[in-house]
C-alpha cells in the first residue's frame, strides 16, 4: 500500500487515512524523501486526523522522517493528532518534543509559512 503525496506549490501534503503497518510506514518514509528531492519542496504537512493509533514504531518512523526531511532542507509539520493518540503517546513515554505540530491542516500551513518566513 502506498500513501499518496500531493504537491501544492512548493509544499507537499499528505493525509494518512489508513491503519499504518510497519512496511507501509517505511515505504512512506522513502517516498516522501524522494518527492522532496524531486520537487525541491521546502515544506511538508503530514495530516494525521484519520489516524487512530500511533505505536512506538510508527512514532519513530514519523519522528525520523521529520529529522531526515530537515537534513534535506524541508520543514515538516504534523497536524491533526487526535486527543486519544496524544494521550496514548505520553503513556508510552514518547514525547516527540522536537517535532513541529499544529491543530489542523490550515494551522499547519500557517506554521510552515512562519517557519520558512515566506
Amino acid at each position, binding site marked *: 500500500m502506498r500513501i499518496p503525496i500531493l504537491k501544492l506549490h512548493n509544499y507537499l501534503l499528505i493525509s494518512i487515512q489508513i*491503519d*499504518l*503497518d*510497519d*512496511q507501509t510506514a517505511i515505504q512512506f518514509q522513502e517516498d516522501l524523501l524522494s518527492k522532496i528531492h524531486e520537487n525541491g519542496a521546502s515544506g511538508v504537512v503530514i495530516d494525521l486526523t484519520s489516524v*487512530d*493509533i*500511533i*505505536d*512506538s*514504531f510508527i*512514532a*519513530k518512523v514519523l519522528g525520523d522522517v521529520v529529522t531526515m526531511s530537515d537534513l534535506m532542507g524541508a520543514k515538516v509539520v504534523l497536524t491533526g493528532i*487526535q*486527543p*486519544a*493518540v496524544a*494521550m*496514548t503517546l505520553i*503513556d*508510552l*513515554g*514518547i514525547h516527540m518534543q522536537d517535532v513541529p505540530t499544529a491543530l489542523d491542516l490550515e494551522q499547519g500551513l500557517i506554521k510552515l509559512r512562519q517557519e520558512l518566513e515566506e
Partner: protein
Amino acid sequence: MDFQSCVNIKKEWDIVGARQLGRDIARKIGFGTVDQARIATAISELARNIYLYAGTGKVCFEALEEIDHKGIAIVAIDNGPGIQEISQVMEDGFSTSGGLGAGLPGVKRLMDEFNIHSEEGKGTEIRVVKWLR
C-alpha cells in the same frame, strides 16, 4: 471469562490484524475512544515484540466479566528465546532492537495490570488487563 479469541503472529501485517481485532472487542465491551486507543497500542507493542524477538506467537483476547466490573485481558504468548533480565526490559529506554525502547514499560502504563512470565529458551507470556471505569 465468556469469550476468547486469538490472532497468530507470523508476519508483520498480523500486528495490524491483532490490534484491529482487540480494538473491536474493546469497543464491544464498552471502552471509550481513549481507552480503545490505549488497548490497541498496547496490543501493537506486544505483537511487535513477538514478531521481532520470537518470530512467531499469538495474541489472545478475553472479555472479563465480574460482578462489579468488566474488562479486557490480552495475553501475548511466544516460544521464543525468552527474556534474560526482566527487570532490564522493564526499564524505560532499554531496547535490544534499536527501537524507541518504549515497549514494555509503555505497555504497563497503558494498562491496569501487567504480568510477565519468561523462561530462557522456552518463551515468554505477558498478560495485561484493562478495566472499564
